[in-house]
């Protein structure tokens, strides 16, 4: 059944100009500068200061690439929104149900698309990193082994952001409005979390990372919101370094909390999307 559902959406995507255009943009406009920076730029030089094939080398390179790549997920979200709204505009959702697809199968077909795009993005990030690392003589096997937690984080982070995009595409039929809603929410969440953390943190807290709210570092308050929870799976190397320098060792519990929050929101969006699909009158 999964193969069948995959084929149905594959047929729709393969002739889609939006899919091709955004994918090319994703690869050429954003990924290539990253590759170029890693191999020749400042970040690359810093990482190369660690000796190639040392644990620090792999850690540095994965943290950097994971952090940079996660922002590209927003581009992939545009593909998901465009295709979901196209399903409404072409009446494909309605036609699929009429032709005999169950609503559960329709939901699964959408989930398969999200998983495929997220897995593709993770694989693409692995290829980019392997290229950069291989350029400096690193072991591809060690590269992969050390990168599994980052790849998983990137995969789940992308899956979460795409699930939010699917939600936007399910509740609004107009492509432009759905994209606007998605981006507006991201902005609102950013402003809200910045305002909250600024108000909750003691003076100087941001610099020293001393403020605690609900057991969280104050500027990690964004983990309580969906976008923050998904992006929080791949914290910035700058933050990690600062947290360590500030005397806050990044404990295992901190990562567990990040994963729990991301998985909770991922589950919530899956349930909400499933409910919309099963209840919507088309």
């Amino acid at each position, binding site marked *: 059944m999964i193969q*069948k559902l995959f*084929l*149905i959406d594959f*047929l*729709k995507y393969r*002739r*889609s*100009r939006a899919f091709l255009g955004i994918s090319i943009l994703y690869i050429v406009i954003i990924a290539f500068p990253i590759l170029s920076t890693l191999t020749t730029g400042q970040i690359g030089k810093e990482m190369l200061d660690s000796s190639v094939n040392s644990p620090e080398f792999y850690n540095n390179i994965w943290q950097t690439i994971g952090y940079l790549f996660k922002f590209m997920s927003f581009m992939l979200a545009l593909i998901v929104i465009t295709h979901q709204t*196209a399903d409404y505009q*072409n*009446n*494909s959702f*309605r*036609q*699929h*149900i*009429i*032709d*005999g*697809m*169950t*609503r559960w199968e329709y939901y699964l077909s959408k989930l398969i698309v999200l998983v495929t795009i997220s897995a593709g993005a993770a694989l693409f990030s692995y290829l980019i990193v392997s290229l950069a690392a291989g350029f400096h003589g690193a072991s591809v096997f060690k590269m992969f082994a050390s990168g599994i937690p980052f790849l998983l984080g990137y995969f789940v982070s992308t899956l979460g952001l795409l699930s939010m995009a699917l939600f936007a595409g399910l509740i609004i039929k107009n492509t432009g409005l759905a994209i606007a809603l998605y981006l507006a929410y991201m902005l609102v969440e950013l402003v809200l979390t910045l305002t909250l953390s600024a108000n909750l943190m003691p003076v100087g807290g941001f610099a020293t990372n001393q403020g605690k709210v609900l057991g969280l570092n104050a500027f990690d308050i964004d983990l309580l919101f969906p976008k923050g929870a998904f992006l929080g799976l791949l914290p910035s190397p700058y933050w990690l370094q600062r947290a360590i320098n500030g005397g806050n060792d990044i404990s295992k519990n901190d990562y567990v909390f990040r994963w729990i929050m991301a998985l909770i929101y991922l589950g919530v969006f899956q349930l909400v999307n499933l409910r919309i699909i099963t*209840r919507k*009158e*088309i």
Partner: protein
Amino acid sequence: MSNNILEVSGLTKQFGSLTAVNQLDFEIPQGAIFGLLGPNGSGKSTTLGMLLGVLSPSSGSYNWTFQENQTHVRRQIGTLLEQPNFIKNLSAYDNLLICATIKGVDKSDIYRVLKIVGLDQRAKSKFGTYSTGMKMRLGIANVLLGDPKILILDEPTNGLDPIGIAEVRQLILFLQSQGKTILLASHLLDEVEKVCSHMMILERGVKKYFGSVQNFVSGGRTSMFYHIQADDMIQLANTLTNLDFVISIHDDEGKNVIETQKDISASEVNRALAEQGIYLNHLSEYTPSLEQQFINLTKNKA
């Protein structure tokens, strides 16, 4: 085992305070061409939408009796609901490949159905480049995928030219001769009268008639119609309005047509008028067309 292919009981759909379909009960016999008739907004598409899973009934139920497992029953039904819903930037072949994949039909069937509707030479053209008639024919091709036993066609001649309409009509009759059961929703009464064996008339979501087309047009109707003339037509009209058994009076190309209660014969009409001092110079029973019957039915009970 039931001889019906579909059994519907108390089917109701409400949109807020509006009752679009109200307590529908009907059955479709196997092998019938079943017409679903009604003016625009009468609830035809809403009824079909519920039977096809795109709308949830507010109450009531339906049962496609030819298959126990109702989950995948729609894969055995060829449906064209309102208008063909295909993806503009995909070819006819790719669009049908998606439909065939959902229905579990082998892709080798695609060219067979495209050939039936005369689109095999344009299989690789994008759907967006098709004319209205070609789009409708592709919709019919999708209906025929997998050779289903039941076909649901909602306004299948919309957008077709007279030749296309005649072809669809021929196709429907051909499919019935192959033993298919066909549910045809239309507001084109002529179309229904020509091809349907059974029908249901809906108006504002309420069932107005259910039975065979022949019964409706002739014996099964709920009233009688007479062409009637007298020397003084004004006096005749005034007298008719005072007779209890007369339901309605209207003009049909210069002649008065009266609709009476079902059990009133021509001689009873003649006698009643003679008792009032009116002597007719013309009285004949008149069988109205489906269209006239339909207009009468919906006009009188609205």
